[in-house]
């Protein structure tokens, strides 16, 4: 099994404070991995490091033959301007950016794929609606449709189900499983451990450092969760040990 990502002593942080510290490990190509851990454990930070928004303070991420344009990323709080006059179909179409770029026009085949992606997330009939008229769950469906068109080999999802109802979540998990079936690598930050147990074969537990990584049943033990909480709390209060200048 080839690896899609390899973390080599990766340290990421903000303004000298590390949020992810000396992370090691591999993400196998085609794997479906949940990233869990307490708040402040560095889960979102890790995804930002992978997509390249944050530069490593130390160490590096090795991509097993992936180029940047083959990675798709759904941020936790997307800064979409929902008052902007753009329709659902137009926003979803932007998922084709890798193919059409900033300037090329849409062909008939593209329109068919856009319609298909919108249908796959259950939003038929919403094509012409401005995004401002959608509910939170519907916006999340639109963003998933756009991810579908991005046709990425590695998909990064940051708390994709945090503000959606059960029905929407079930539909969107269906999309995630479709990606898994197609051999794409998916990394998703999640909080609901039941969802993780039911749908994600592998889990990476973070608490600034890797607590455990492997098959979900072996990672999500009470012992590991207790250790993760302790590791995060050890870093939280001032003067905290993580404030030392790295040796």
């Amino acid at each position, binding site marked *: 099994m080839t690896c899609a990502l390899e973390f080599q002593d990766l340290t990421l942080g903000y303004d000298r404070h590390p949020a992810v510290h000396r992370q090691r490990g591999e993400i196998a190509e085609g794997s479906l991995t949940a990233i869990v851990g307490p708040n402040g454990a560095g889960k979102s930070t890790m995804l930002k490091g992978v997509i390249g*928004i944050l530069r490593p303070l130390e160490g590096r991420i090795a991509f097993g033959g992936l180029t940047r*344009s083959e990675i798709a990323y759904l941020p936790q709080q*997307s800064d979409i*301007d929902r008052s*902007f006059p753009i329709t659902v179909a137009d926003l979803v179409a*932007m998922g084709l*950016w*890798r193919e059409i*770029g900033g300037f090329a026009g849409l062909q008939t085949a593209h329109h068919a794929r856009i319609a298909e992606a919108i249908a796959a997330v259950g939003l038929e009939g919403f094509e012409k609606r401005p995004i401002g008229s959608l509910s939170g769950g519907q916006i999340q469906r639109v963003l998933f449709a756009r991810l579908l068109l991005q046709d990425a080999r590695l998909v990064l999802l940051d708390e994709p189900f945090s503000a959606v109802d059960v029905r929407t979540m079930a539909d969107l998990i269906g999309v995630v499983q479709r990606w898994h079936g197609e051999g794409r690598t998916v990394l998703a930050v999640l909080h609901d451990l039941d969802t993780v147990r039911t749908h994600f074969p592998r889990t990476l537990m973070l608490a600034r450092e890797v607590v455990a990584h492997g098959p979900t049943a072996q990672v999500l033990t009470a012992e590991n969760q207790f250790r993760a909480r302790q590791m995060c709390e050890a870093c939280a209060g001032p003067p905290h040990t993580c404030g030392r200048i790295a040796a």
Partner: protein
Amino acid sequence: MMWEILVQPFADFGFMRRALMGCIAISVGATPVGVFLMLRRMSLTGDAMAHAILPGAAVGYLVAGLSLGAMTIGGLIAGMAVALLAGFVTRVTALREDTSLAAFYLISLAVGVLIVSTRGSNVDLMHVLFGTVLALDDDTLILLCSITSISIFALAILFRPLVLECADPQFLRSVSGLSAMAHFTFLALVVLNLVAGFHALGTLMAVGIMILPAAVARFWSVGIGALIVIAVSAAMLSSLSGLLFSYYFSLPSGPAIILVAGLAYVLSLVFGPMGGLAGRVFPRRYLKT
């Protein structure tokens, strides 16, 4: 009769025809840029950039007198310098764009006022601040039309990156390196159109023809294409009626044009179907589910 009132001034006087042509060129070029400024919540950026252009035009005036080329190039250099410096500071340091832009334009404006007040007369200052729409010569008209053509062409090419940079900047940055290019090209277009505008309407009034029609359009439509069409039409009609008012009542033309645009804004504010005041006072019945 009505026809005569509307057409006679332009039939009789060459300067009126030139003024109208100049204003239409500015309406077509600057107003779509204004629509994007509004959509990006950067309306006040237009104002800041207009102030930033002043010292460049003043230096151009000092070097070469009332020379079209020198003042245009001076204004372009000053405007671009402020836009690039502010953009650079925003992207590299902790300062947000509004503050960094304000800082640089204030510096630029102070330099401009200093230059004009020590070396020029008040008449010159009035010329730069309020423009000379009734004295547009051939060269100026060609310059205005050229800038409009460049502007329309650049907006057409940059349309997709610009829309995405407004609607979902994070996504644009994750799929493409065009984000910075789109942003700076757009700022360059703002400067370019303000420089065109200041020849006719002055540095301060030039912002008016950019922003007011965009604000008018906002009350009549939600689609981006329609916004641009409505805004350009509003700008052209304001130019036409502003020039006629200034002709019949001997008013200064620049402020007259902007005031008509302002009147259109107030009317839209009250009667506009998309979020206007009338809709608030007399709400329509909600749709049955």
